[in-house]
Structure formats: structure tokens, C-alpha cells
């Protein structure tokens, strides 16, 4: 039986979007894990359609964020997860003012309907349903310095995990449905002018593959993530401005680690990085993050209170 007693969030943030817990681990019943993650992401080249370029009027575009996260184990195979990032954007050159503020709150229900151990190998399946919505009145129509895309999203992810001894591999795929957004203009151009303040946001498919080492003390994994915008998006044309409903694709590679302290087993430290290697209408971001998580057993607290 795989032990997931001290598992916590390993985050694979994509753009600055809502982050979903997509590792093959569950919080055990009545445990509440919470923490904060600081992240720094920056790019100085981006893809205008398929054309890779720099923009000296932006210099380096950086995004810093602090995200509050929590994961509650309703049962050993049902977790509820939330995350809420505070984001700050900045361009190192040019005259454009950066932005800061709360971005999108995301809630995920993670359910493990199947787990079976055969010999040394454990197989498990997961279903994750997620919702996200902006919690502040930030503008999406301020790319590349907007805090996010504002779209309310709902996602369904199916995930399979295989663990043999301390080595594991996880594969998951998600369909992300994105709701229309409204912007501060009453018309905008995609391939023709639309006379409305509402923007149809293309959906996306996300595929995530992880492989690595997993024990109660240490988790270390390599991640390959591919985010592909579905039909309805469009490319930034030559030397044009980006727009929220652009096709935004990104292939990323990265590393995630988590270490649980020997002396304080409720406390863990996470850290990692990821790099966009191929993209379309996105910046070629290099991202680094680190954070702390703490686990509370709420059942114990309740029992103590009852006494």
C-alpha cells in the first residue's frame, strides 16, 4: 500500500493561471495541508504566432506571485484543494506600467476511484474536477502585463499513476473549458471587428507527464507539460498587440521537489523550476518557485475540543 500520509502540493504552474494539483498522491482523511508558494517567472523573448522575437520596448517581462494553497482530505480518496495567487507584473524597459493584485481563485475536487497493489507495484486512477474564477477586478485586456485572462474555467482531468518501490510515473490529461470574458472596450479586432465587450475564449487541453522518486521524506520529479489551445484562438500578427483570446500554446519541462523535515514531520519545503521550450503567442518563460507547507490533523483537534 502506497503511503500518502504526508503528501502535499506539488505545483506545476502554467502561465499564471489557476494551478491544479496533479500529482498522484492524496491527502489522508481529515488532514489539512496549507502553505504559501513564491514564484518568479520571466521572459525576454516571445512567440508572435510562430515567429520568435524580442521586444526592446518591454525588455524583460517578469511576473512575481505569492500563492496561498490548501488541501483538505475529506477521505483518503477524496480531496478538496484551493489556491489563490497574488500577482505582480513588470516590464523592465519601455513606458508601460506593471500591474498587481489578486488573480484567480481555483478549487479542485480530486478523487481516487481506484487503487490496487500487485506485488511491488501500485496502480491508481484519479479524476480531478476544477473551477477557477477571478477574485479581483483586474483587466485581462492589458497583455502581456495583465494579471491573468479573467476567464472562469472548469476543467476535467483524468490521471493515472504507477509506483514501483520508490519510483513512479504519472500521466494526466485535462480538458479546460473557458467562459467568455468581458473587456473594457466595446469592440475589438480578431480577424474582423467584433462589436461587443464580450470575448469568446478558446478552450484548452493540457497533458502532463511526470517521472521520479517518491518517499515519505523526499519527492523529486521531472515534469513535461503541454498546453494546447483549441479552436477559436488566433495568432498575434506581425508587430501587433497580444489579445486574451490568442492561441496560447506552451511546451514546458521542469523539476519539482518536496522535502519533509525529519524533526517537524508536519512541515515540508517545496521548490522547483520549469522552462518553456516551445510556444505560440506566449513568452518563453523561465520559472522558479519555492514554498512551505504545513499539515494539520483536524480530527485530533476536534476530538480534543470535544473533551
Amino acid at each position, binding site marked *: 500500500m502506497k503511503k500518502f500520509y504526508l503528501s502535499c502540493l506539488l505545483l506545476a504552474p502554467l502561465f499564471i493561471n489557476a494551478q491544479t494539483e496533479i500529482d498522484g498522491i492524496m491527502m489522508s482523511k481529515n488532514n489539512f495541508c496549507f502553505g504559501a508558494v513564491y514564484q518568479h517567472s520571466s521572459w525576454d523573448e516571445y512567440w508572435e504566432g510562430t515567429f520568435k*522575437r524580442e521586444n*526592446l*520596448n518591454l525588455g524583460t517581462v517578469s511576473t512575481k506571485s505569492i500563492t496561498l494553497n490548501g488541501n483538505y482530505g*475529506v*477521505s483518503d*480518496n*477524496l480531496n478538496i484543494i484551493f489556491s489563490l495567487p497574488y500577482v505582480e507584473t513588470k516590464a523592465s*524597459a*519601455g*513606458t*508601460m*506600467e*506593471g500591474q498587481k493584485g489578486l488573480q484567480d481563485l481555483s478549487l479542485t*475536487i480530486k*478523487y481516487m*476511484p481506484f487503487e490496487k497493489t500487485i506485488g511491488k507495484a501500485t496502480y491508481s486512477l484519479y*479524476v480531478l*474536477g476544477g*473551477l477557477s474564477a477571478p477574485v479581483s*477586478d483586474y*483587466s485581462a*485586456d*492589458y497583455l502581456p502585463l495583465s494579471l491573468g485572462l479573467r476567464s*472562469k474555467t*472548469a476543467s*476535467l482531468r483524468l490521471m493515472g499513476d504507477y509506483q514501483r518501490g520508490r519510483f513512479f510515473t504519472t500521466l494526466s490529461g485535462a480538458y479546460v*473549458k*473557458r*467562459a*467568455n470574458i468581458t*473587456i*473594457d*472596450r*466595446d*469592440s*475589438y*479586432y480578431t480577424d*474582423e*471587428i*467584433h*462589436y*461587443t465587450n*464580450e*470575448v*469568446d475564449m478558446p478552450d484548452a487541453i493540457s497533458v502532463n507527464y511526470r517521472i521520479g522518486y517518491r518517499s515519505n521524506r523526499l519527492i523529486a520529479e521531472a515534469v513535461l507539460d503541454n498546453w494546447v489551445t483549441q479552436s*477559436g484562438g488566433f495568432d498575434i*500578427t*506581425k*508587430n*501587433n*498587440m497580444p*489579445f486574451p483570446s490568442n492561441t496560447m500554446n506552451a511546451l514546458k519541462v521542469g523539476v519539482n521537489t518536496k522535502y519533509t523535515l525529519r524533526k517537524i514531520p508536519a512541515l515540508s519545503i517545496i521548490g522547483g523550476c520549469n522552462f518553456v521550450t516551445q510556444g505560440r503567442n506566449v513568452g518563453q518563460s523561465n520559472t522558479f518557485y519555492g514554498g512551505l507547507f504545513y499539515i494539520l490533523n483536524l480530527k485530533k483537534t476536534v476530538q480534543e475540543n470535544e473533551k
Partner: protein
Amino acid sequence: MKNKIQKIAYNSILVLFLTLNYSCSDELTERNEQFPQLNPANTDDLAGTWKTFLLTAPDEFSLDAPIATTAAAFTREINEIKSYQASVTPEQKKIIKYWSAGGVLRWNEIMRTLVARHNRPPYQNEDGTYPAPSAASPFANPEFPFSNPPYAARAYAYVSAAQYDAMIATWHYKKLYNRAAPFTVDATLPVLIPKSTLPSYPSEDAVLAGVTVELLKLLFPTEIAYIQEKAEEQKLYRIISGANVRSDVDAGIILGRKIAGKFIARAASDGTGAAIGNQALWTQLESQTAATGETPWKSLDVPARPPMLPLFGKVKSFLMTPEMVVASRPVPPPSTKSEQFAKELAEVKRYGQNATRKNMQIVTFWADGVGTYTPPGHWNAIASETFVALNYSEVRWARNLALLNIAMMDAAISCWDAKYTYFNPRPSQVDPSIKTLTGTPNFPSYVSGHSTFSGAASVVLSHLVPVKAQSFVAMAKEASDSRMFGCIHYRSDCEKGLELGEKVGGFAVARALIDGAE
């Protein structure tokens, strides 16, 4: 217990997905798709006598007399309509719905799309210089044109003015030949749009297609295929809907093309081609301002970009002589060394430091920057949505948009004249700590282009639709303020820009009073 959890999990995920499917309906409701079919309350029967812009007389270009409605050939033309109507495809119904809102309106919308599509500054060369778009090789990099605000203002003005003159000629010939519409000749013919009481030769829609296509070929040469496709749709719509026979349409195209020629000849020699200037001029602008002791404007683009169309102030106007441009020129801006300037700079900085969400909305709403239809396009959109409710005849639509767009072209000329006379710096040039909430335009600050365009537009529209005057003035003020809130203009730029716009808009209003339409 286990079952209960399973149930909760499945139900939660199910509910989530149902919510999702209901809440994320992707259908957009676009305002221009809701426009009703044009059914003018007043057909402006006497418009053939209204004052034209370039035509010396409404019949300067001849149009052959049509065949009689009693001729066998005419019956065959009616049979063509009937054969189309026997099976109208959904695609054809869509075309009818689109074009029946009005030809002047739809061509104006098409132009706004073309302007937005081409409103992109050239991308730099490897060596940090910039290539210039060339009308002679429009498909080269960068594509021709770069439809920035002055280019766009002029383009809207030429098309609108040509359409107006073409409609005057059309009304003249309609009255002269007085050929009945197909549905009047054959009462059994179904008509898919509101019936017009006007004679139908030549077709006003075909004249519009003829004149507009020729001008757009000149203004947006890489878009000819797209433009032709629209024109074919418009012609087809008239025949399928039963509003015109083939000979109404053919005659209209011929007349429209002839009239376009006159405007194209004028455009070729109005000075726009030379407005980009050259290195010697750019250097001279800088040194002559420095010689006065003032801080000359510098491009804040990286790499530095030559100033946008420094000689646009010399472009030939429809209503202003060069002397009138100079006479309308605003007083000099506050010296960069003055107390007044320091005060205005500090005000801009405050707007940046205390950017409220409301101010950001205003900045974005009126930004009309790269990749948009520009401020003149924005005012065309405002005007169009106003005019739709007023159910104008095509000739009045053309007249009112011509007055509006000629006023905004004059705003561009006068504003650019002021900008390159004074050549003063943007706030972020003087104080690099000032960050902006919208892109910093690549031309001098005084006076604000948005303010000048908006002042001119609000004066003309207030004259045309007096009941909405208050709202036009308020919109112009907000558009003007938006540039200060965005930290790219000082208060003087905005206030003097509005004043200048109102002044040049007055020339179009003066013309409106005597053109015979009021």
C-alpha cells in the same frame, strides 16, 4: 461509508460539468448583427441637387439611359430575380440580412476592419532602422499601408466623400430616368427587403460598391480579394432580394467607378505620399526646436523610430485652405521650463501613481491604439450606431458620414500641424519615472490627437443629431481625459486639442448648413 464518498465525488464532478456547460455558452451578441433592415422614413427625393465635394455637377459623369420596363430584355431581368428566388440558400439569406441594413453603413464597417488589420507599426530591421511601407510594393515587408490615425482619418474621409458625391449623382439619375423598380413593374415579384419608393436605376448599392471598391483598392491594395468578395455579395443581395434588376446594378457599378476616378486623382496629389518626410527633415525638426531653448521631442520606442507622418499637416484638406490651417493653430504649449509645465507634469505623474480602476477603464475604452480602427474609427462606430436608429436614406447616411470624416481628416491635418510646429516631448520623456497605462504614441505631445478628433466629431455629430449633443460632448471630454489618465498627455494637450477639434469641426458644420440637405 465508502459508497457515500463515491457518490459525493461523482455527484460533485457531474454538477461541476453541468454548470460548466450551461454557464459557458460561447455565443456572442454583436451589436452590428442586430441592426434592422434599412427602411428610410424620408427618401430625400431632391438629393440630386445637394452640393457635391468634387463633382462639378451631379451629371459630370454621364450614364446611359436604361432600357424600358416594357422591353422583353427587362422581363428577362425580372426572370433572373425569380430564378434566384426559387431557391435562396441560407448563405444568401445571411448576405441579404447583412447588406439590407444599409450599404454606406456596411462599407464603413468593412473599412474599420481594414484599418484595424493594417494599424501596425513596421517591425525594425536588424540594424535598428525601420523599413517604410510602400504603396508601390504593398506586399513587401512592412505591408502597405500602416493605417495609423492620420492615414485612417484620410482614408475614411476619401471613401465617405466619394460615396456622398456618388449618391448625389445616383439620386440625380434616378430622378432623370425615373425607371420603376422591378417589383413595381411586376407586382407578383416577391421582395425580400422593405420596398423603396425611389426609381431603381441606377442601383444605389451598386454605385456604392463601384465607387468604394476603387477607392479601397488604392487605400488597402493588399485587400483587393476581400473587398471584391464583399462587393459581389452586395450586388447579389440587390438582385436576389428583388430590389434591383441586373441593368440597375451594372449601371451603378459603371457610374461608381467613374466617380471614384476623380477622388483617386485627388488622393494621388494631396501630399500624403510625402508626409513621412526624410532624415533631413527629422533632424531639422529636432534642431529647430532645440534652437528655441525648448526640449525637442524624442522617440521613446526602442530602437528610436522616426516621428509619425511629420508632414501630414501639409496634406490638402477638403474644407480648409493651408492659410486656415495656420490660422487655426493653437497657441504654443507651456514652455518645458515653465511653472505651468511643471504643474501639468506633476498632475500626469499623480494620475499614474493613483490609477483607479475606473480611470483604467476609461483609458482602455478610448485607447484605440495599435491593432484597432483608431479614434476616427471609434467615432465612425459611435456615429453609425446613432444613425441606425434614425433610419436615414443612403444619401443622407453618406452625407453625414462624409461631414464627420472630412472634419476628422481636418482634425488630423490641424493636429499634426500643431504637433510638428511645436515638437514638444511626452511626459515620460521629461520624467522617465512616469509609467503609462497605454502605449506611448510615436509623435510629439501637443496637441492630443484623440482630443482633436473627438472635439471635431462631437461638434459635427451634435449638429447632425442635436438631441444627443450632450452625450457626444461628454464622450469627447472622456476620450480627451483618457489620454491624461493614461499618462501620455498633459492637460494643455487635451484641452487645446479639444478646442482645436471643435474649431475645425465648425468648418464641416458650416458646410452642412449650405449643402442643401437641411
